[in-house]
């Protein structure tokens, strides 16, 4: 029976080429717009570290003074002070934990011909590599002892390794910075987290950091840091300025890995207790105000998916809805034009169900064709996104599930659009139609 319905549907396409093309194009444009924006949204809102995202937490404290210069803010500071980060790290209340900041180091390549260049780097502590599943290819990360000893060591990314040493093993080699020399103890494979959730104050998508070295070492060498810094008092008295241990400035990111998501409440309690202790000691002035977000919570708080991308998605789905309404109208016109034919079919014994099914098969076929057109337009739309100067441009591709979804959405949407017209067509009164023939 289905084969016969398909045959009828195809014949009906041939009879009504303009109307059929119109419907296919409308659905194609609607699906293309919706799938382009949905793919973009999905790429940007993805989980960068799915195996662990529920167990990694970003703690925040409120270290600001009650002074005149600060307005009332319900949210605590987005980053920690160096003092608090070092203290939390020392107290080691999680399974793993790391403090960190972004930096940019100027590398002086060996040989006089080569130009100095900047490499984006991360100053962090020992647990960083295991905690974030960093793909070490050769050598090792550094230990907590190295952190304590301010060891002049570094782990480098594959791109920096290739730039400096070619294909040779970087482990054991030296990197010359303008502030001193670092010994390479580990090499990393290409590592791109999208988004780079552990520090959202710097570049969020694409491109990995190339140099990793102990935070303590970076302070010892006075390497320049990058990212935002918030101060609420003067740090002129500190030899290291705003980056000094006791400076009233928040600029350090801190992550902690817990055994299970359930331990978050305990850790939150610990943070509140820590805040109270600091207040008792006179360092903190405001009442304890702590937050502990897991990876997805932190991404959400930071609005990692730009508002424009969200708005575009809503717009595209609104557009798809109009396209569907249009399809309902056109299908209605198409089916009712065949009233005479349907009347004869009914008079010859076709049931209402049969007429309904035949109309739906026709709608599904249009949906499939629309899906194909939509797929083409989606690919075109995504190609266009990739041409934009966006930091996430390279990541925007259609994967297999989204490809399947494109067709599923097209067929489902057209079927939905076909139900009302099909019902209307199946209720055509045969007697009236046959009489008028």
């Amino acid at each position, binding site marked *: 029976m289905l084969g016969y319905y398909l045959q009828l549907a195809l014949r009906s396409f041939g009879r009504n080429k303009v*109307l059929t093309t119109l419907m296919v194009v409308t659905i194609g444009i609607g699906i293309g717009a919706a799938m382009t924006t949905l793919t973009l949204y999905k790429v940007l809102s993805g989980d960068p570290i799915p195996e662990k995202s529920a167990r990694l937490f970003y703690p925040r404290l409120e270290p600001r003074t009650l002074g*005149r210069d600060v307005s009332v803010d319900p949210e605590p500071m987005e980053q920690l002070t160096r003092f608090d980060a070092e203290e939390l790290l020392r107290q080691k209340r999680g399974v793993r934990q790391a403090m960190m900041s972004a930096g940019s180091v100027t590398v002086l390549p060996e040989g006089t011909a080569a130009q100095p260049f900047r490499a984006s780097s991360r100053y962090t502590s020992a647990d960083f590599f295991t905690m974030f599943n960093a793909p070490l290819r050769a050598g090792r990360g550094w230990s907590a002892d190295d952190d304590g000893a301010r060891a002049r060591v570094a782990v480098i990314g594959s791109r920096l390794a290739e730039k400096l040493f070619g294909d040779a093993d970087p482990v054991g080699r030296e990197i010359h910075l303008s502030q001193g020399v670092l010994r390479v103890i580990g090499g990393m494979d290409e590592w791109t987290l999208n988004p780079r959730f552990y520090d959202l104050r710097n570049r969020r998508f694409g491109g990995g950091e190339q140099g990793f070295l102990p935070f303590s070492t970076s302070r010892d060498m006075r390497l320049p840091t990058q990212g935002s810094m918030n101060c609420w008092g003067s740090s*002129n008295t500190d030899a290291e300025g705003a980056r000094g241990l006791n400076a009233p400035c928040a600029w350090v990111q801190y992550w902690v890995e817990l055994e299970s998501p359930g331990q978050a409440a305990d850790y939150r309690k610990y943070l509140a207790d820590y805040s109270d202790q600091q207040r008792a000691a006179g360092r903190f002035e405001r009442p304890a105000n702590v937050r502990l977000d897991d990876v997805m919570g932190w991404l959400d708080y930071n609005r990692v998916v730009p508002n424009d991308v969200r708005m575009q998605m809503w717009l595209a789905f*609104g557009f798809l809805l*109009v396209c569907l309404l*249009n399809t309902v109208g056109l299908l*209605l016109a198409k089916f009712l034009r065949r009233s005479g034919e349907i009347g004869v079919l009914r008079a010859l014994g076709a049931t209402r169900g049969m007429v309904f099914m035949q109309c739906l098969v026709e709608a599904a076929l249009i949906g499939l064709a629309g899906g194909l057109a939509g797929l083409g337009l989606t690919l075109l739309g995504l190609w266009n996104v990739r041409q934009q100067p*966006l930091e996430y441009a390279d990541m925007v591709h259609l994967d297999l599930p989204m490809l399947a979804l494109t067709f599923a959405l097209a067929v489902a949407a057209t079927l939905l659009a076909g139900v009302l017209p099909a019902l209307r067509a199946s209720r055509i009164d045969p007697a009236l139609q046959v009489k008028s*023939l």
Partner: protein
Amino acid sequence: MEIRPILSTLARHKMAAALIVLEIALSCAIICNALFIVTQRLETLNLASGMDDDRLVEVALSGIGQQTDADARTAEDLASLRAVAGVERVAISNQLPFQNGSWNTSLSLSAEQEVPTLNATQYMFGEGTLATMGLKLLAGRDFNADEYKSNDELSKIEDVSTLSSAIILSKAAADKMFPEGDAIGKTVYMANIPLTIVGVVDTLLRPNMMGGNRTFSVIFPIRMNFSNGGRYLIRVSDPARRAEVLEQALAALDRNDPNRLVWRKQTYEEGRAKYFANDRDMIGLLLIVSALLLLVTALGIVGLASFWVQQRTKQIGIRRALGATKGQILRYFQTENFLLATIGIIVGMLLAYLLNQWLMGRYELPRLPLLYLPVGAAALWLLGQLAVFGPARRAAAIPPAVATRST
């Protein structure tokens, strides 16, 4: 024109009529809001920075390794840049309008105030920056030569309680602090550092939007150097020669010290265009989708209208045979479409308002001005009439003889 027969015909085609109404309503709601967002973005895109944008070129460098006397090297650089042909003025500033990231500070009317009066962006200008940028001084004066201090020297001072400074405010900031318009000569406070207002400039925007404001600026006579975040600003005498001046400026800086990294080199307008790239994309996208929406809606109207004309061929023939003119048939379909469009537009305005409410809540969009509603309505009426014209003309062309045929 008799409306009653039209209404009774529509009542017998409830579903098709409802579809057209709904399609017009949704299009109306989306297009009103989309066009509103477009105008919003266009306004931001065309904001005046306060500077002579087309005359400016910017270069920023950073040194490799410890800089022993960056202030002296900066003075040398400025002198070398001034000597480049086509350069009118040269200055150094910590930031410029329309860039990501900004320096900010809070100002109060008294040193004891609990909550500061405003949060303003903090510009640090070296000598001659006002004239280089082309800022318009509304009242007071530019900084005197003895008021400028070096940022490096300032950061070495341990006892901040001895500090004080002259400042220049943007008009918006001055008006907010002194609504009477008598800001000149008054003292305001940054924490407990007293600052004397010596001048007010018309406009100098904050580099980026912050806390819903981009007009509050305070200018300090603090000289940055190339190594602590200062960027050179070059004013050219002829906008057409900007590229050439930039090239020669880079060569001059390279002669002073070849061991530096240039991290910013562009005409000011290029930088500004990059800052707004996303907004321009969004405008393009919204316009395309709006155009497509209109097209799809028009196609929908054409499709259903043609179907109706075909279905009613016989009735039309009978009306023509009974003496209706071609014009009357044409107007029948036009009126019918006008009625449907009107209902659609009324529902659409309601939807547009609801959609705007939702966008306001989620994406901090302002309220939709009422002006957009009649504009959207007119556009959809016109669209409806255009779309229905073809099918209506075909209907009018049906000969009265049809009435005598059996099908």
